[in-house]
């Protein structure tokens, strides 16, 4: 309890980069703070009232000095901006092939499900050295998913997907916090991120029993909600097959015009909740809305299913 760390652990690929920038900034800040403190101390001592010192020709203004001390902070500022912006970019672009994990926040817990199917609450198990991508949403208010050891944070909003990715570099147990104030038990809405050796992770996944994967659960839901009735080559309804849709460009009919939209998770979500807002060209707007009928975790499962058949050929 009486340990006195100055830095959280560095346990992700971006952590050292963020720390480096941070130390640079601490250095710059120290430099300017010390500069100003020291100058003030020197002046107040040297030019204290009554000291016998040359006070002739004090300067009242100097364009040269002013431009200097406007210019220097500006230059440092630009360095920090570009450095920070570049890192930020990297921070957010998940590498391809990242492990998919979905996160649903609600007052005051985190419901997390791995694509292999195992679900957990307030804990997140991840394998070492493997990029992980979280797709997150909230059922009520705004929360924020925060892992200090990874230097990542992202608000989790109701009615919308946000994402976060990281690649753990150190086996261990790290804090998971909710960083956006969300009501009574905001401070209790956290848990642990457990980084494991890949083999341990596989074992851990298997421990949950050889239950269905998220996609398999999604497929079951796909049938339960009668999606399959239309989307698997129905005789009565002309509906698009969903194989190979995910990640592709989809033509959307907008009045007389057609424009293309990438079928990402947000698109699939909208297609299910408000199907008629984006009607695929060549189809009638027959699909009913499932707003309020499918829970957030189930939605994510269905999406996982549709994603899982992204590689398949569309049977015609």
């Amino acid at each position, binding site marked *: 309890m009486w340990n006195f760390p100055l830095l959280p652990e560095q346990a992700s690929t971006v952590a050292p980069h963020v720390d480096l920038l941070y130390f640079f900034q601490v250095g710059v800040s120290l430099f300017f703070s010390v500069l100003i403190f020291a100058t003030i101390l020197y002046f107040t001592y040297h030019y204290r009232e009554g000291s016998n010192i040359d006070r002739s020709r004090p300067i009242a203004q100097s364009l040269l000095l002013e431009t200097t001390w406007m210019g220097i902070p500006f230059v440092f500022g630009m360095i920090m901006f570009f450095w920070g912006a570049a890192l930020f970019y990297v921070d*957010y*672009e*998940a590498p391809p092939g990242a492990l998919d994990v979905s996160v649903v926040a609600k007052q005051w817990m985190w419901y997390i499900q791995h694509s292999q199917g195992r679900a957990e609450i307030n804990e997140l198990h991840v394998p070492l050295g493997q990029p992980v991508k979280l*797709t*997150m949403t909230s059922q009520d208010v705004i929360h924020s998913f925060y892992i200090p050891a990874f230097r990542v944070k*992202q608000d989790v*909003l109701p009615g*919308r*997907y*946000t*994402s976060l990715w990281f690649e753990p570099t150190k086996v261990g147990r790290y804090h998971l916090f909710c960083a956006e104030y969300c009501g009574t038990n905001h401070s209790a809405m956290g848990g642990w991120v457990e980084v494991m050796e890949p083999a341990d992770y596989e074992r851990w996944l298997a421990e949950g029993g050889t239950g269905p994967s998220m996609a398999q659960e999604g497929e079951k839901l796909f049938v339960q909600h009668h999606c399959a009735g239309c989307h698997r080559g129905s005789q009565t309804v002309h509906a698009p097959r969903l194989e190979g849709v995910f990640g592709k460009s989809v033509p959307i009919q907008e009045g007389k015009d057609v424009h293309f939209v*990438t079928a*990402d*998770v*947000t698109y699939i979500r909208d297609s299910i909740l408000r199907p008629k807002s984006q009607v695929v060209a060549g189809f009638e707007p027959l699909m009913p809305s499932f707003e309020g009928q499918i829970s957030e975790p189930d939605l994510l499962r269905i999406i996982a299913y549709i994603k899982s058949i992204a590689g398949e050929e569309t049977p015609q």
Partner: protein
Amino acid sequence: MHHHVATIKTNLIIFGLLMLLLVATVGAAELPLGPLNFPVAMLIAATKTVLIIFYFMHLTGTDKLTKTIVGTMFLWLVLMILMIMMDYLSRDWLQILGK
């Protein structure tokens, strides 16, 4: 301070122009201009505003300071709208979820 008093004729001309512009807005709304409908409507409203401010509110007769104030207030309004819009317009430019 002492602007010259605007004549009744000036007032009536401005009023006439305002009426014309009003008819123009309604007319323009009926035209199939597509995405241009909105900017056209706003342009007409802005023109009406300019007429009202300059003539009914006598901005023509006032000093630079008052004109600056008027300029600033509309500039700030536009600034707020545009900068908030900036967020919404650029959402999903990157194919990164939630960015």
